[in-house]
């Protein structure tokens, strides 16, 4: 994808790209950390039909919503040849016993045979996380394992 990066002196940076539907879509990163989602008009590609200011949290959530399924779909595709293996995204829910504790503390591998291959946080992917990574509520874990293993893992993350 060809993302165009345009500096906006005094304001921040605009990052956008053309989508197949014929519009430009992207974000403006303001210097003070605010993010704005922009979508261009179809009849006048220079102008914007929407510019939506987002807080950092909102932008991160939107990023996870858009990015996570794609990553899972990609991993599922890669594991298609191995029967019985599935990829699933499991959240660290609010009130999880592992909110604020490390990946090692979950003993996920020992207890459920499930591997955590990536963590989605604030719209970013942390690939191959180590046991020292500390979880916070809202993280999405991309897990690979058997159907039973993944069910057990979901329960583990929720109840400990």
């Amino acid at each position, binding site marked *: 994808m060809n993302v165009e990066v345009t*500096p906006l002196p005094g*304001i921040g940076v605009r990052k956008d790209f053309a989508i197949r539907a014929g519009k430009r879509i992207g974000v403006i990163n303001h210097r003070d950390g605010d993010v704005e989602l922009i979508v261009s008009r179809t009849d006048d590609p*220079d102008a914007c039909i929407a*510019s939506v200011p987002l807080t950092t949290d909102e932008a991160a959530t939107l990023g996870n919503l858009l990015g996570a399924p794609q990553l899972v779909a990609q991993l599922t595709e890669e594991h298609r040849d191995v029967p019985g293996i599935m990829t699933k995204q499991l959240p660290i829910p609010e009130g999880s016993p592992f909110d604020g504790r490390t990946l090692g503390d979950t003993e996920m591998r020992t207890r459920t045979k499930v591997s955590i291959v990536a963590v989605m946080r604030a719209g970013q992917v942390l690939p191959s996380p180590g046991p020292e990574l500390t979880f916070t509520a809202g993280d999405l874990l991309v897990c690979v394992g058997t159907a039973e293993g993944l069910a057990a893992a979901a329960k583990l993350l929720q109840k400990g």
Partner: protein
Amino acid sequence: MASTALELIQLGAVFFGLGLLGRLAQRIGMSPIPLYLVGGLFFGHGGVVELHIDSFAELAAEIGVVLLLLMLGLEYTAAELVTGLKRSWVAGSIDLVLNALPGALVALMLGWGPVGALVMAGVTYISSSGIIAKILSDLGRMGNRETPVVLAILVLEDLVMALYLPILTAVLGGVSLIAGLTTVGISLLVVSAVLLVAVKFGRVVSAVLYSEDREIFLLKLLGSALLVAGIAAALQVSAAVGAFLLGIAVAGPAAHSATRILEPLRDLFAALFFVAFGLNTDPADIPPVLVYGLILAVVTTGTKVATGWFAGARSGIGRKGRIRAGAALVARGEFSIVIGGLAVSSGAAPPQLAALATTYVLLMAILGPIMARVAEPVADRVTRVKTAPSAA
């Protein structure tokens, strides 16, 4: 004791009145600057009520100018200025020629001589980056493709100011041609040196000033700005220029938090500066220059739209985008008043110049946001009527 009480009451009344005017401006979606100027006219010499807060207002107005220019310098990093110069110098030069000429010509017609021409050229040239930034964000145009074009022109105007202000100060000081040229040479050198230092060592300057603590940072920032401004004024370079160059030298995260910390202070002192400028303008001077103000307003609206149109076309922007870019640039405001203020306080310019600058900025600060809003729909209608006369 009694005089202090009176001054406090008058100052309080002025601030409160400005607050009400600001609220009114917000309600009707315009910049508060013209209302502040009107407030000043109302209370000044020859106005309805004469106020006596001169001693404080004078210093406060001076601080207002320092803060306005400091924040103008903070707005863009030195790297942005250098890139802007490389990329958009053609559009910037057209902007300069088209918009400085009308002011200079009118000043010559009014017999104000080359000094007056230089002042009025600056007044009509410089767009108000404050009003324009607000227009762009209010109208949701930050993501538009023509917006970088508009910003690039503002960046170049910023750079031109760095050269123009020292020259103006030298000329207003009444120096001879050779001394003037020396000042210009020195200011060119100083500006280049500051840009170089800011690009290479901006971090060092910022690190010296920066502090995590808001209070300490504010004191260091304001202290250094006033120090630099004062030293610059003592060296016969204007205080405004010193503050402006300091603003350019501060970069990175320090510049961003500096902007946030200084904003309320700037608003306070700048408001007083506009009032003080209005105070020093005699309303009786306005009617004789009103026609010239109107002519300038019409002509320089056209020249800014033309500038935006041309700059947009160079960047491959469509017709509507070019109209939007041009109309967004129309607003003049705080820096036109700063230039007018420098001229009037030096005594080298006729008092009618203050009246013309006030009239002009009153018109342009009101007209700018309106133009930005209506230019595109109006242009739309005109094209529609042209292409389908039977439908109209």
